[in-house]
């Protein structure tokens, strides 16, 4: 978003605020929320367009869920506002809710209803009736992989299925905006994969906000990530952009097996493409090292492969690190 033309507004206050696009589907504008004296959400602003999947990242208690609750109208903001699909959340809350599908953090569903009855209730409230209601419920059940349990009482379902039922109600009316708070919480790896694939699919013509503290989810699904800590936005970038900020980005990771008496650290440092070497671990003749390049990382990698004396050392693996999100996350949120 940093390369947008200058005639788009650049909001003050948050140095990371994205330019406010005219075609944005979700525009948060200095959303703030107090709980008593606690400023739980501090002037959060961002802008998301169609086709974007935004990862809303942050440590627990950072204010992610509270921000989502303000966007969906469950909690009113103390100050600031947001515009979703052209409707202001303070003036037209009902229109906003019609355009949104919301999956709350606890994935709440009515335990005494069957899956079918629950989705029919949601469909009715969303304005569907008669044959169209039946069609939309059937389609949603298929899309959410729920046909085997459609007649089962929700309270008897496992956590994974209950999550899927709540997910189903959020996509039932095919809303242009999806807000999902921890959508894969408590799911096993297979289910996580399924849900993430579904979200990526939907992301193509919707605007989606994904609230999570699972970093691999952000890398797997999101086109953009905002990191929020202690209520404020501290980073707003693509996942690749964020990873590039980590200290290990652009370094070359080398695993080498050395003959007796030979020191890989010294031999690597001697190469001209290498600026510095740090030993990560050593196990007998095998060493895992991080090499800081003097110039281009791939030049350094080539240099290592060609320059390291094969009589003394055997290279087991060489690769250029793209950066680690958890490092960036830790650095930024603990600053």
């Amino acid at each position, binding site marked *: 978003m940093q390369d947008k033309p200058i005639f788009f507004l650049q909001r003050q206050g948050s140095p990371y605020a994205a330019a406010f696009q005219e075609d944005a589907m979700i525009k948060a504008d200095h959303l703030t929320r107090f709980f008593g004296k606690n400023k739980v959400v501090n002037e959060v602003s961002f802008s998301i367009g169609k086709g974007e999947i935004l990862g809303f990242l942050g440590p627990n208690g950072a204010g992610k869920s509270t921000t989502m609750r303000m966007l969906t109208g469950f*909690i009113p903001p103390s100050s600031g506002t947001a515009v979703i699909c052209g409707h202001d959340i303070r003036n037209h809350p009902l229109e906003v*809710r019609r355009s949104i599908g919301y999956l709350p953090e606890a994935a709440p569903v009515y335990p005494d209803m069957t899956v079918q009855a629950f989705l029919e209730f*949601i469909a009715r409230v969303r304005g569907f009736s008669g044959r169209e209601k039946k069609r939309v419920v059937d389609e949603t059940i298929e899309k959410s992989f729920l046909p085997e349990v459609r007649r089962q009482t929700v309270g008897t379902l496992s956590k994974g299925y209950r999550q899927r039922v709540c997910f189903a109600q959020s996509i039932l009316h095919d809303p242009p905006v999806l807000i999902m708070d921890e959508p894969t919480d408590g799911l096993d790896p297979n289910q996580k994969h399924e849900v993430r694939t579904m979200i990526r699919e939907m992301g193509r013509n919707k605007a989606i906000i994904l609230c999570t503290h699972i970093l691999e989810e952000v890398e797997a699904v999101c086109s953009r990530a905002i990191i929020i800590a202690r209520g404020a936005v501290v980073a707003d970038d693509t996942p690749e952009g964020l990873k590039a900020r980590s200290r290990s980005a652009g370094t070359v990771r080398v695993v080498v097996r050395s003959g007796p008496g030979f020191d890989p650290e010294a031999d690597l440092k001697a190469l001209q493409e290498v600026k510095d070497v740090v030993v990560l671990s050593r196990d007998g003749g095998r060493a895992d090292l991080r090499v800081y390049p003097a110039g281009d990382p791939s030049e350094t990698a080539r240099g290592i492969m060609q320059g390291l004396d094969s009589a003394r050392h055997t290279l087991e693996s060489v690769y250029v690190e793209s950066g680690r999100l958890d490092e960036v996350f830790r650095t930024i949120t603990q600053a």
Partner: protein
Amino acid sequence: MKNRFFPNVRAVAMRELAGYFGSPVAYVFIVIFLLLCGFFTFSISRFFEAGQADLRGFFQWHPWIFLFLVPAVAMRLWSEERRTGTVELLLTLPITMAEAILGKFLAAWIFIAIALALTFPLVITVMVLGNPDLGAILAAYLGSLLLAGTYLAVGSMTSALTKNQVISFVLAVIICLFLVMAGWPPVTNALTGWAPRWALDVVAGFSVMTHFTSIERGVVDVRDLIYSFSMMFFMLYATGVLLKNRRAS
């Protein structure tokens, strides 16, 4: 977007009602209600011995039977939603707070109306045995329904106050007890000696008893209807205020 008030209220109410009858608790409640009514009417009021062709001996117990049974129905109205988190789902759907509150309230009221309607064998009995004033009986049923509605609205408010159903129940019973006692001779007599006439009237006016007993006798006074509906409106409005302010927890 056209007005969705009635469809939304209906959708919420139907969901809630289906929930009542989907669990054995509803049936247990109805059986207990009917047993209590029967017990009080036949054993305590001595219906048969009294030999009167009216159902006063049945209706006079309703304020007391409802005092405990209606809060039991109302206690799970909002406490359960807040406890399981479904309130977050319900209130982020495209329905207004009023539609949600009214829908749930109506469902509970309809449920109690069904329980009341199941006392029809008593009406048949008195019609077979004598020549009762049916108009008075119908009026009394209306009064009973309004009484239940008032208690229910109080219970709706207390259930929005807390996530704990037991606290909701106890609070509702206490408030409804106050509403009953306010017009009771022991209370009004205690005030007669020294309090000004208007104070007496205000306190007595709060009571359900003064309004209920007159309807029960067959006289449907507009003021009694106004009382019931304004109490219900006030309590349901308070429910909304409580829900709005306590969302964060």
